């Protein structure tokens, strides 16, 4: 059995560690490229959303590389993600791509059965260790992401921050134990602080909210975070993968409390049932507005249902929190030039707003 899974940002590092730790052979799909998206778009229903198409492209490329089992997630609605796997299975088998699907539904029962099916023969200790190491890597990757975002607009040479980030992620990827993960982060920090910084600039601070896949997958959002950094804007994501996992899977008390606070902020504007992350987009816009951010960029796949609802309400939220909001939809036709024009205009607007407020 050779297992594979869809890409989402640097999540493959975590999945690889986890499944290898369970004693499985892992084939990581090739990095997402234009070709991945074209494969997915060719076979997916035209009106499906961008993550569907990119996942499908990942699966095709993974099966071509010898994977015979696809691990992916299910869901119980109302977002479309929950029904992806059923449709993808049919599309793949019709085109002669044969693979078993292990669909992990959001229930203890399903997780348990998938685990027994995948990790036959692994001891509980092995399973526990695999999860712990994967979790440690997840935290490390989030730290690297956040620090890169912080240093990028302040560094004299932006590219070197990107390079250090890539190197550190690669080091985390190959780390075999806790100590090596820690060492990778430490060496990233040391190299970062050795870079030449300009501490006189006070970069504009922009928060990213929106749909998780488009926020976390740089190919899907045209490397938005890095591009904003090069414009001299610090782009921070209040929700990285670790935050989702701590809130929705591990139920960490602090994360739950923070989530509840965000939902309370969103309550005057929207009911909590719209699915996906629509409510959080609104709650975090309020929260970051109060925290003194200069602007919000709201990202979502074109036709994403929960985020379309959020998008129509965000202008009102932006006024209430007195923070400008830029909504960007992404699909397979998105181009860099159009996005950059809008980002530059938005950054100009924010800079003007700050000068005006500063007198």
């Amino acid at each position, binding site marked *: 059995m050779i297992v594979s899974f869809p890409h989402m940002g640097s999540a493959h590092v975590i999945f690889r560690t986890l499944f290898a730790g369970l004693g499985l052979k892992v084939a990581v799909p090739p990095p997402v490229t234009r070709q991945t998206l074209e494969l997915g778009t060719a076979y997916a229903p035209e009106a499906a959303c961008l993550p569907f198409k990119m996942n499908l492209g990942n699966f095709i490329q993974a099966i071509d590389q010898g994977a015979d089992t696809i691990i992916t997630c299910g869901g119980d609605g109302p977002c479309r993600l929950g029904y992806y796997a059923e449709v993808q299975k049919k599309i793949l088998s019709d085109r002669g791509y044969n693979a078993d699907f292990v669909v992990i539904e959001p229930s203890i029962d399903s997780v348990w059965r998938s685990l027994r099916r995948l990790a036959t023969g692994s001891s509980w200790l092995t399973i526990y260790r695999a999860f712990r190491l994967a979790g440690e890597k997840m935290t490390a990757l989030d730290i690297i992401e956040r620090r890169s975002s912080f240093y990028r607009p302040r560094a004299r040479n932006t590219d070197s921050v990107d390079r250090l980030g890539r190197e550190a992620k690669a080091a985390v990827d190959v780390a075999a134990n806790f100590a090596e993960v820690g060492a990778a982060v430490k060496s990233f920090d040391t190299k970062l602080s050795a870079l030449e910084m300009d501490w006189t600039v006070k970069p504009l601070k922009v928060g990213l909210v929106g749909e998780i896949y488009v926020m976390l997958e740089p190919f899907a959002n045209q490397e938005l975070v890095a591009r904003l950094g090069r414009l001299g804007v610090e782009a921070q994501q209040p929700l990285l993968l670790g935050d989702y996992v701590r809130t929705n899977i591990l139920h960490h008390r602090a994360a739950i409390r923070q989530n509840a606070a965000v939902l309370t902020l969103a309550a005057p504007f929207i009911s909590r049932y719209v699915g*996906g992350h629509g409510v959080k987009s609104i709650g975090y816009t309020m929260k970051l507005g109060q925290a003194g951010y200069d602007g919000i960029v709201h990202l979502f796949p074109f036709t994403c249902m929960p985020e379309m609802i959020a998008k129509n309400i965000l202008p009102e939220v932006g006024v209430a929190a007195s923070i400008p909001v830029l909504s960007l939809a992404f699909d397979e036709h998105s181009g860099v030039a159009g996005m950059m024009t809008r980002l530059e205009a938005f950054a100009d607007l924010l800079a003007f707003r700050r000068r005006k407020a500063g007198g």
Partner: protein
Amino acid sequence: MAVRVGIPRSLLYYYYGDIWREFFRRLGADVVVSGETSQSTIEQGGLVDEVCLPLKVAAGHACELKGKVDYIFLPRIVSLAAGQYTCPQIIGLPDVVRSCYRKLPPLIDVTVNQRRNSFDLYRSVIAIGRVLKKNAAASTFAWLQAARLPANAAPLEQVSPAAQLRIALIGHPYLIYDRQISMDVIRRLTAWGVEVVTANSVDPLTADYTTRRLAKKIFWQFCNHLTGAALALMYSLQPLDGLIFLTSFACGPDSLVSETLRWHARHHDIPFLLLTVDEHTAEAGFVTRLEAFTDMLGRRDGG
């Protein structure tokens, strides 16, 4: 003077309109239902960005009630069946309408969520009654009386006796029975001598039972019914000459359901046509495709 309650003629009105009207009448309110969808309805609803056409139409209908009523009935219908949802856009409708249109009469935007507990409906009914200053017993009684009416307020299908072809037209009732946004597709097909069967002709239990053929139950209630009904029609003994799936652009659930239906239609050797409408759909292009499809079916039958 009695309180005037306005109901937009859109979305779930096409399922539960009769029941809602009767409920408010029994609560002593004057019920005003917005008119048939027109071009100006669509234009007014266009203020809501990017969402599917029926949602824009619903917003347009809500606007048309402005000045005519004291309250607009726009419930936040999250779920009407255990473990199922309506869809994120329907759930978000009252929030979006309130945010995009400032000068509307107050909305009755009571949440209805029977996903975990079917008795939650009575909490919603009592909450609606409270808006109209009725006590819990009166509202519950009015609801129980009104709910005896059959759901499916949709018009009966006209079957012309000399029908040459039998086509299943699958699509949400708020799409196919809205003559403006569906380009009057049912009347057109009937005029061409086609017997049109819709998902309404399959009773909900049969449809739900038929969805067992799917590996995973669809968690959008109305799409589940459409899919089950379409499958029941395909698997039934009465032959089906073709299947038309009418959907609106940006409808999320339909984008995955259409692929499922296409797959089953192909395995039954039933020609499948996917028609997508939005506010920019031109009548000529739409009709041409419809004509080409029925012509093709006619030749296929003759050959």
